């Protein structure tokens, strides 16, 4: 028997930079349009955080309501913002990846000369865009109906932090997308997303949760993102921001590592 020929990993094509940029741009555009028109995604990812914010942040709001020293409706922008960013990122990456990987579409794309990285980059970029949309909607609602006052600097910092904070959850989504089946992905995401949100104090402020849960929250990445966001509007537990960033960066790297194992396992199935 002859020995198996050694296969090289896909090599980069000498494309002009402008063409590579065009591919990335079109990949992001198509991913965005696909998801925008997929109401199961766009309505849910935008609708749930907005609905929660309207119910808890606006309907239950009163002029003097506050959590600690932070105005109620402002506090909830940070926490429901984190909740919204998480949802947009997890469903945006894991949902699409698990389905396309499991049902053959990724294979069609891999057989084409598409740069493989463009595929993942588009999923992440699309999730970041949706995260920004959710946060901006919460801002608009809070400012117009909730009596929220944010300085331009605070607005930019809060938006920037939350949108950047979508990246750890995109990484988690890629990892889930590589290990979940096309039919189970949404259920698995929900089973991770919803308890994680609750335990991180995104629905109900952490101070209302039992002591044990308050402690437990410290190991949960959404807690750290919400603390960064709350810190900007003067709320939260007032811990060092470095801890939060370190946890989020570490978490991102671990998730990317897991996603990479999944990627290689798939490639192994393909090439092995």
């Amino acid at each position, binding site marked *: 028997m002859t020995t198996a020929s050694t296969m090289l990993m896909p090599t980069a094509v000498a494309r002009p930079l402008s063409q590579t940029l065009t591919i990335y741009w079109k990949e992001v555009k198509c991913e965005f349009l696909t998801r925008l028109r997929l109401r199961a995604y766009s309505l849910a990812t935008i609708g749930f955080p907005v609905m929660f914010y309207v119910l808890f942040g606006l309907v239950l709001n009163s002029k003097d309501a506050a959590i600690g020293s932070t105005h109620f409706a402002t506090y909830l922008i940070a926490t429901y913002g984190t909740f919204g960013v998480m949802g947009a990122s997890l469903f945006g990456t894991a949902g699409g990846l698990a389905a*396309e990987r499991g049902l053959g579409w990724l294979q069609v794309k891999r057989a084409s000369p598409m740069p493989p990285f463009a595929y993942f980059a588009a999923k992440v970029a699309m999730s970041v865009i949706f995260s920004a949309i959710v946060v901006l909607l919460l801002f608009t609602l809070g400012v117009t109906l909730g009596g929220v006052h944010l300085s331009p600097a605070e607005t930019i910092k809060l938006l920037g932090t939350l949108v950047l904070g979508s990246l750890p959850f995109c990484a988690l989504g890629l990892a889930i997308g590589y290990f979940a089946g096309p039919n189970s992905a949404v259920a698995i995401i929900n089973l991770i997303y919803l308890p994680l949100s609750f335990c991180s104090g995104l629905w109900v402020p952490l101070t209302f949760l039992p002591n044990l849960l308050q402690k437990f929250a410290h190991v949960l990445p959404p807690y750290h993102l919400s603390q960064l966001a709350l810190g900007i509007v003067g709320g939260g537990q007032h811990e060092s921001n470095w801890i939060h960033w370190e946890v989020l960066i570490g978490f991102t790297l671990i998730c990317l590592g897991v996603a990479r194992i999944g990627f290689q396992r798939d490639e192994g199935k393909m090439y092995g």
Partner: protein
Amino acid sequence: MIATLQVQEPTDKPPDSSEVAHLQGVSKHFGEVRALHNVDFSVRPGELVALLGPNGAGKTTAVKLFLGLARPTAGKVRILGGNPVQSEVRMRIGAMMQVAKVPETLRVREHIDLFSSYYSKPLLLEETLIIAGLLEIKDRIFGELSGGQKQRLLFALAVCGDPDLLILDEPTVGLDVEARRLLWEQIRKLVSRGKTVLLTTHYLEEADSLADRVVVINHGEIIAEGTPAEIKSKITGRRIRCLTRLDISTLRSLPGVLDVQKDRDQFEIRVTEAEPVLRELLRRDSAVSGIEVTSAGLEEAFLALTQNNNGDSMPSGRN
């Protein structure tokens, strides 16, 4: 429009002009399952080769090997003078794969536009739409397309990069007769433009009507290879029914006779070619009557061939 497309110059010949794609002693095992075993076959430039076999024969595995989506357990895969995982090789290949679900909320033209961007010299969007017969429905959302239209979009994604080699895995599966013929027409046009096409199918009729050369595969092994006419004669032969006073052993001894069976008072004689046997039959028994010559049903004969790939009566087309 279509006329202008046809007068386009044929694309550049690949550097190694004797073969475009080649599986050399290739085996592919998935754990215990032997998907392909010691398969040798090649596709030459400008040729339309059909890889014919029933479901599970190993056709899709062969396609994946050619596309660099799987690595052979043993043997060598060469395509367009290179390795299928090299992007510059992929640039010159268009592939149509079997896919369970395509993103449904993109429009036809958006799908094509995206895939076109992967290639360095793609066709114009309009050209691709015309070739795939999608011009009228270019703004339709994928999820709203009929089965045939969906299949044509996958075909459009394969041709949009103006590749030299098209690899089409079961391009007409699930299509009705009319949609199938439309796609055949489009595939023929590509070959007339100098493209090389490798397609897999489990319809003998499809291989027969399209291909220059047919490779029959079953249980991961190639069991016959040749022109459609050769394959058909080798596979199917003819069936002569008649009334004769010759006995069954005499009939069996006639040259070119594969098998004889008695059906009530008639004989049913399976032969490779009808004419020599008929001549001999008439010479030996001038009273022979009720002669009826039929070709064995294509699908039926194909099934007989593939279900019996070790059968002794099977003429092997392998060189």
